[in-house]
């Protein structure tokens, strides 16, 4: 029997029991659809989450530099500028923005509110997509040393609920003294990016903040790697720069600048121990943690889906066993006219595989449809790729072969005479 004969006889046998064949196919359809939908849904959800995390700044490297000695405000400013330039020149680094965070309070009526003053340079905006002033403007180069402020969306809503804050005067208490800031802008709502709650800050010029607080505050540098793949390399380059810069200070403190165990933070892991006068934090661990959990989730869902495929396969085996018994006479006739055992085996295998391939293709369609609907409800991108298609058809052929094999072998081992006599 050549391949075409096998297919023809399989189609003829299957079409003579339409309902039975249909139900067997349905079992495979459900199994394959479950697998395909799971893979498609999870990869869609993953793509969405990855996009979001990328928006959170996967390329971002946070560098904290702790003061090694009491410095004057001007010395602190000089160090900041020098280090910014050095870090920006490091390999794989595209941008370095220095920031400083300071606590301040504000009295609203009788209540005292805590405020986070973030000292920034104009380049700060380059770190984020879709972050711009809703009204007024952001900190400008010319603002250096000036007491101007730009409010995050939440701060503006909180302090100036009924009016446009731009042009208002915001007097905060900072280090025991009252400092009036001219509000020049209010930012759009942007939410949390990485570990920064952008809407909750009051943005002021970095130089202004350093002047007001002296050297008591450590400075943070936010660096951006040229691309997501280079984050680790950029972080290493930055560490090199920092190690060289702080070598004398570290030696004085008797502390080695060895890279040690990761200091876990909710958004990443410090690459260096706090024993050094600096720390370098990458966001990448967040992504790998996320991908890890997605992989686990995929495994669990895929196992459940695979179980339903297994059930479909058992259904196939059941039906094939019934079919072998029913067609014992036919098997005897075929053997009498010269069918070899393997011809009989192949004939029944072909039937099982045809059922499974049909089920697999239909299941692929149903699975994609389900994934598409799921993506509409979940509002994540509908990801379609050749991989689940290949997997589905491959899976169903394998299921057909595995579960069809036993009945087929049973059929092929029948004794021709007994098979002919079977009533």
């Amino acid at each position, binding site marked *: *029997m050549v391949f075409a004969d096998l297919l023809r006889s399989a189609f003829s046998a299957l079409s003579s029991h339409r309902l039975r064949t249909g139900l067997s196919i349905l079992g495979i359809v459900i199994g394959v659809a479950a697998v395909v939908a799971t893979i498609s849904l999870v990869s869609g959800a993953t793509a969405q989450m990855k996009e979001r995390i990328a928006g959170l700044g996967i390329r971002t490297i946070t560098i904290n530099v702790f003061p090694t000695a009491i410095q004057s405000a001007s010395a602190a400013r000089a160090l900041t500028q020098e280090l910014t330039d050095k870090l920006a020149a490091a390999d794989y680094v595209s941008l370095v923005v220095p920031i400083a965070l300071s606590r301040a309070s504000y009295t609203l009526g009788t209540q005292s509110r805590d405020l986070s003053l973030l000292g920034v340079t104009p380049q700060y905006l380059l770190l984020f997509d879709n972050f711009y002033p809703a009204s007024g403007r952001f900190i400008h180069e010319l603002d250096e040393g000036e007491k101007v402020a730009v409010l995050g969306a939440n701060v503006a809503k909180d302090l100036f609920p009924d009016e446009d804050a731009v042009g208002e005067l915001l007097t905060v208490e900072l280090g025991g003294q009252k400092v009036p800031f001219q509000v020049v802008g209010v930012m759009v709502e942007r939410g949390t990016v990485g570990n920064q709650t952008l809407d909750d800050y009051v943005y002021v010029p970095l130089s202004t903040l350093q002047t007001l607080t002296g050297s008591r505050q450590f400075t943070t540098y936010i660096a951006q790697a040229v691309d997501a793949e280079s984050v680790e390399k950029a972080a290493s380059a930055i560490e090199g720069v920092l190690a060289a810069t702080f070598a004398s200070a570290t030696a004085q403190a008797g502390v080695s600048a060895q890279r040690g165990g990761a200091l876990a933070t909710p958004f990443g892991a410090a690459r260096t121990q706090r024993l050094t006068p600096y720390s370098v934090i990458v966001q990448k661990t967040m992504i790998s943690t996320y991908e890890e959990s997605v992989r686990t989730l995929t495994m669990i869902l895929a196992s459940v889906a695979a179980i339903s495929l297994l059930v479909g396969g058992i259904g196939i085996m059941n039906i094939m066993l019934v079919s072998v018994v029913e067609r014992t006479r036919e098997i005897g006739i*075929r*053997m*009498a*006219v*010269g*069918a*070899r*055992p393997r011809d009989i085996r192949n004939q029944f295998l072909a039937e099982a595989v045809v059922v499974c391939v049909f089920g697999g293709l239909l299941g692929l369609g149903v699975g994609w449809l389900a994934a598409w609907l799921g993506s509409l409800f979940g509002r994540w991108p509908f990801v379609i790729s050749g991989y689940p298609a290949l997997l589905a058809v491959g899976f169903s052929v394998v299921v057909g072969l595995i579960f069809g094999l036993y009945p087929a072998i049973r059929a092929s081992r029948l004794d021709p*005479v007994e098979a002919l006599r079977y009533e």
Partner: protein
Amino acid sequence: MNIVVELRKVVKDYRLGQTFFRALRGVDLAVKDGEFLAITGPSGSGKSTLLHLMGALHRPTEGQVLFEGMDLTSLSPDELARLRNTKIGFVFQQFYLLPRITAWENVALPLAYARVRPAERRERALAALARVGLLEFAQHRPNQLSGGQQQRVALARALVHNPKLLLADEPTGNLDTQAGREVLELFHSLHKEGRTVVIVTHEPEIASSAERIVVLRDGLIQEERHGLR
């Protein structure tokens, strides 16, 4: 004369649950090339078993079956299948046609297992159907044919691969007298063309139309005699 198939001291046991049933108890028989042989005897005497052994459907429990001098006991299931596919044609009492396919497709079945090209299969199947006078029924399914016609389709299937040996197990047993006579006539005309024919029957009329008659009883050859031809 050459011998097509020869049985030497053949014993055949069947398993019936825990016990064995001995269908043949030591049969010696040779079928000569071009012979028309009838095997007869009461039911349960081992006629069909003898035919199945000649047709390579069975292997003997003891003794030897030699097909053109080749010992069947030494052949694998695949080799036995090939022998049935090329040298032997079977006709059964219940016709044993596949119900889902047409007459010509039934006739072509042995050719499919012989890996003959599809176009040639059809050609040869139609020629075989023409030989049994049923060319115009080529597209009919078995349930659209009378019993006599079905048996003639089965005969065409047994002929299509031009076998050395034609074996028939009660070929007229399910047919009315007229149809039975027609089928028997076909066997005789095939014999005249030089084919070796072995027919199992319990009908004395059919048995006596053969050249040689072997009578079986309780798994042994009881009697051998010449027929009318």
